[in-house]
């Protein structure tokens, strides 16, 4: 189905829900932190569920469900299925919803080690945790069909308002295909890797943050996940040439977006474990 057709019957005054799964709530703040825009948005759409902002109607029929967070518990598997069944379109936002997020670092443990973690963190009544917890933190798309995705840890206000605006106009939200380097070049930011020998993931990480880290004089650490045309082998060779150990390189990619296939697969293939 072509993109214009996909959203052709989208309601003129849609019902929108914002759902939270396992996360820090930071992507919701892209809406709450800019309350002026949120109030304006509320004049264009009906926000029927958004627990942190107030409205509660968890399983209402909606035109658009915005999902933050990853799926970590049995209960949340059921919940995301219910949300999907009641939503015409699903928009996943942020690293947790798209790749499992930072808590997906648990996916590198085995069952025995995870059990150990559970006992270490919750020693007194671990059954509650053990019974509810899944062995993995996975993206929303691992459980239900997702229509649109916005990357970022966190996403930013301009990004989500633009995406909602585009959907209201019947247009699929655009995807950023460029790496962070593009913004650095456009903004005239001196390359931290060239000038300061700072390890920077900018060449393989998707733009969208406006190159915050290089502008602060530090290397990118990958909040927006892999760029579309990432040359991972060249990136890893460069980091090795700069003197980083295999462990340090592995940690750089096993961070905010560790489950993104580009990062996960290449690290498994090229770094000795």
């Amino acid at each position, binding site marked *: 189905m072509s993109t214009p057709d996909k959203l052709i019957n989208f309601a003129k005054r849609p019902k929108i829900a914002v759902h939270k799964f396992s996360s820090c709530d930071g992507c919701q703040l892209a809406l709450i932190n800019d309350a002026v825009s949120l109030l304006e948005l509320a004049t264009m759409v009906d926000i029927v569920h958004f*627990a942190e902002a107030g409205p509660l109607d968890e399983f209402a029929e909606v035109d658009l469900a915005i999902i933050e967070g990853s799926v970590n518990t049995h*209960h949340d598997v059921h919940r995301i299925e219910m949300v999907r069944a009641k939503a015409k379109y699903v928009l996943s936002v942020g690293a947790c919803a798209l790749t499992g997020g930072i808590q997906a670092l648990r996916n590198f443990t085995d069952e025995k080690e995870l059990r150990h973690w559970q006992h270490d*963190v919750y020693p007194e009544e671990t059954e509650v945790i053990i019974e509810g917890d899944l062995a993995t933190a996975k993206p929303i798309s691992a459980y239900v069909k997702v229509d649109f995705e916005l990357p970022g840890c966190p996403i930013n206000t301009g990004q989500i308002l633009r995406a909602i605006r585009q959907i209201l106009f019947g247009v699929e939200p655009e995807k950023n295909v460029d790496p962070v380097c593009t913004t650095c070049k456009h903004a005239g930011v001196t390359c931290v890797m060239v000038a300061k020998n700072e390890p920077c993931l900018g060449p393989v990480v998707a733009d969208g943050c406006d190159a915050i880290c290089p502008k602060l004089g530090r290397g990118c650490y990958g909040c927006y996940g892999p760029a579309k045309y990432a040359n991972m082998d060249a990136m890893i060779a460069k980091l090795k040439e700069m003197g980083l150990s295999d462990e340090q390189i592995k940690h750089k990619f096993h961070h905010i977006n560790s489950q993104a296939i580009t990062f996960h697969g290449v690290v498994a293939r090229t770094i000795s474990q």
Partner: protein
Amino acid sequence: MNVENRTTKIEVPILARVEGEGALDLEITAGKITKCELRIYEPPRYFEKFLEGREPNEVIDAVARICGICPLAYQAGFSNAYEAAFGVELTPWIHDMRLLMFLGEWIESHYLHTHLLAAPDFLNYRSGIEMAKDYPNEVLRGVRLQHLGNEILKLLGGRSVHPNGMKVGGFYRAPREEEVAVLIPKLEAALKDAKDVVEWFSQLPFPDAEVPFKMVSLRHPTEYPVFATEVITSDGETFNINDYDEHFREFHARQSTALHSTTIAGEPILFGPLSRINLNFDRLPPHIQEMANATGIKWPSRNMFHSIIARSIEGYWAIERALEICRNYTYTDKPALEYTPKAANAWGAVEAPRGIQIDHVQLDERGYATAIRISAPTSQNLPCIEANLRSSLETFGLDKPDDELRLHAEMVIRNYDPCISCSAHFLTLNITRQ
């Protein structure tokens, strides 16, 4: 049916207008509360475990992800711990910038909480969005102040949620003088707004809610506490944060995926703005003390609902202090200090917007973490919230209709500004204190 003998179950399956996922189970039998459990069902996230083996600045970037509303509290708490571990003495410039950035988080968090999460309860609205229809100027004023906090965070961290500017030993970059100067007129204008907010909140109807709990805060040698190493309590105790475990105990309660804290003897302890203002009133400048007294509240106050006023007074203080730092700002080309990593154990503490955030790191000779402990203010307050719910619902009247009881219970909880997405607390106590 005789009201005295009825059993009522009140469930709040999702707590609205709090950060993270929680629920409340309340049972009333024969006119008495027989069950009052705040259930935190936010999934465990295991930060303490997966950060083992990571280098210091990776941990600083990672811990921001514990909480979207107060990411800097974790970054600052861990920076303090690493700097204590490595023996780094911050320069006055770095100290001032850390304080400025953290005041940005106080301003952002306080005005977000008071205006969008808490105030609607006092004025009988279901949300800030709904309240804005009748109180457009007041809500917009709060939002303006919240934005100013975000702008300060952005100046030093590039963005307000999960800022990227701070590292162990200082900052990645020093702002230019003209970047800081643009904040000055905004902060000046904000002083009037902040003062008006204090006056507005002092007119709110305050339910009775006397809290008997021991109050706890950090204590700074000369000013209102943000970063400090001394802890004081309303019982007159004073101790260093390094001795925290000798005074408080963190444990796991069955109903919750967040940890709870009490004194060693098992009494609830109250952290946060009401504790801070009560215990540090003398550290507020005289004209702010006057402003606080002009609200008609007799300080120290034990009415938990006065927290909203405490937050607004702290907001005013934070804006004034931030203004002072900006007016005295000079650029430096040395925004961070070098340090030599080494094996160590260290504590770091800050007054997060909701109360003391205390972190502990155990490091190997490379400075990589071998064990991490994170104690967030909300988990320390959970036993207080439950005890406060019991007493304030009894004062409110258990014979009131269920809907009114439910709303009042939610109001009590939201008043604390619980931040429960953190669900990430490592308990070493059982192991280390044997």
